């Protein structure tokens, strides 16, 4: 054996630039959280900042500003999200515009279909079966979603091809330097996304509000939702989900979401100014916070969690 003997455990804590250095145009990028919760916005802004093109982005189970900002930044060739909108705040403006002009391809799907595709990857199967979507128009728009006869009973079911992301971007409340991740609220589909990505040979990157000591996971291993072997890189990003929530830690910043919506719904100069100020100018997460989030807003986001 000429391999060097390893005696120390490797830290996966690294700067965002290093964590995302291998993303290339055309890659399939799955983003965790849901709607405007647990969205790794610090990681998303880094991708926009690098002006990566032609990404296939997956929002599991639901997406909002994460994918809409990537579309606004010109990074997206194809959207795979069962829901892309802003819930009670309205539609996703950049998505809506791009859909009307044909600027992005849309992989039409239901939540269960997208989850079945990821589950297939996590289990290393070619496809997954669901019932949802039989009798709908979705299969006629999406060649990866097929109505087939169940091989045992012949009843009509839907087969979804395995989805193997090249990158998974997640946001967790806390993580240690080895990649054990814990969530304060709901982890949504993050575990499945990590499993599907790793099993398919991809890279899992997580931003965390707080880097905690290893003893945190060791003391309460049941609180680790995602185990370290599923995680390749940990990026420290306090309030890294802003303007989205970090579920159970801080509430989403509705005014922050609305300022994006206003910029993206206005004229191109508004959007350009917004992107410049929030994405291109700040050097890192702390500068972003200093420039865009008042301390009183951060306090309100924290206290809103408890009603």
């Amino acid at each position: 054996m000429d391999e060097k003997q390893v005696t120390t455990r490797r830290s996966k804590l690294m700067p965002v630039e290093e964590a995302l250095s291998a993303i290339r145009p055309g890659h399939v990028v799955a983003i965790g959280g849901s709607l405007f919760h647990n969205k790794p916005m610090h990681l998303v802004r880094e991708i926009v900042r690098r002006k990566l093109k032609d990404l296939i982005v997956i929002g599991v189970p639901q997406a909002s500003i994460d994918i809409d900002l990537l579309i606004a930044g010109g990074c997206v060739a194809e959207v795979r999200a069962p829901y892309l909108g802003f819930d009670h705040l309205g539609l996703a403006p950049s998505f809506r515009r791009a859909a009307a002009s044909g600027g992005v391809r849309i992989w039409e799907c239901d939540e269960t279909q997208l989850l079945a595709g990821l589950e297939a990857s996590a289990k290393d199967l070619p496809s997954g079966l669901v019932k949802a979507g039989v009798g709908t128009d979705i299969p006629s728009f999406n060649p990866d979603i097929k109505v087939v006869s169940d091989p045992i009973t012949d009843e009509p079911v839907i087969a979804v091809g395995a989805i193997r992301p090249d990158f998974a971007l997640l946001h967790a409340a806390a993580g240690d330097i080895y990649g054990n991740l814990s969530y304060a609220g709901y982890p949504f589909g993050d575990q499945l996304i990590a499993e599907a990505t790793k099993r398919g040979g991809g890279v899992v990157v997580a931003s965390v509000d707080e880097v905690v000591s290893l003893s945190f996971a060791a003391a309460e291993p049941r609180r680790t939702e995602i185990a370290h072997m599923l995680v390749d890189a940990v990026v420290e990003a306090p309030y890294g989900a802003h303007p989205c929530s970090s579920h159970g830690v801080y509430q989403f910043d509705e005014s922050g979401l609305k300022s994006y919506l206003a910029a993206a719904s206005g004229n191109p100069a508004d959007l350009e100014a917004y992107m410049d100020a929030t994405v291109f100018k700040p050097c890192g997460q702390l500068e972003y916070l200093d420039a865009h989030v008042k301390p009183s807003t951060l306090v309100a986001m924290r206290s809103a969690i408890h009603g």
Partner: protein
Amino acid sequence: MAEPAVEVSWPELAAVVLSRELRDGEVGSPGGARSEIPLAAARLAQLTHAPNLAVVTSAVGYVTNAIGKPWGPLCQSTTDYRNIHAGAEAVLPLLSVFRTRRDWFFAGGLQVDTFGNLNLTAVGDIKAPALRGPGGAGLAYAGSCASRYFIYMQQHSRRSIVDKVDVVTSIGYGAGPDDRKRLGLRGGGPVLVITPMALFDFCETSCRLRLKSIHPPHTLEEVLDNTAARIIVPEAVPLTTLPSERELSVLRQDVDRNGILRRGVAGSGRKGEADAAAGRN
């Protein structure tokens, strides 16, 4: 019918009408574009006639019951941490959310048609849509598996209540009575549609949308003028039963203490199309 002593907003009326449909011992999930309406309906049902009703918050597996819990605010976004945390007793992993039985779901859409099919995908040509919707979220799943589901539409117009949806995001009765059985769909399909003007059910034999009651002060003529779907209109159409004193007092004091159901009523305070388009499950 006597005028109500207090004015009731449309979301309040919808929450009360829908709460009457939820039975004790059931398991269901609120959803749709104004999810505070079904969430209020479920909490009201728990606090009035269905104490053993289990609510699984959609796409977030918190299992909640309002009985004996400190009051929690009713919030506009289903997945808002305050909403799902209020009265939570258990948390299901995401995949379990899709493996748990549902007696009912709530759904909304850009368009609903005479057979209860829903469109949340796009209005117009799918390649260059006049209005791109947000997508169906888990609507196709809800529509194919729940024992029954309720549809609520924030707009009642000829553009939203149509004869045939532009895109079938979620199947109701397909093209008629036999489709659900032929396709082997598990649930029974949609049972009610409530709009700001009226309440509909579906004819047992034809599966077509049928006018069930009209919310005062709206009129039959108004409903027909604003409906593009070919619907069944019975000879006598009653007015929708307004909330009782008890229903309204529990709703306002124990469920919607912060009054969000009285704010931003569709058609008056909010931008109609975009709101309707935000329809989600």
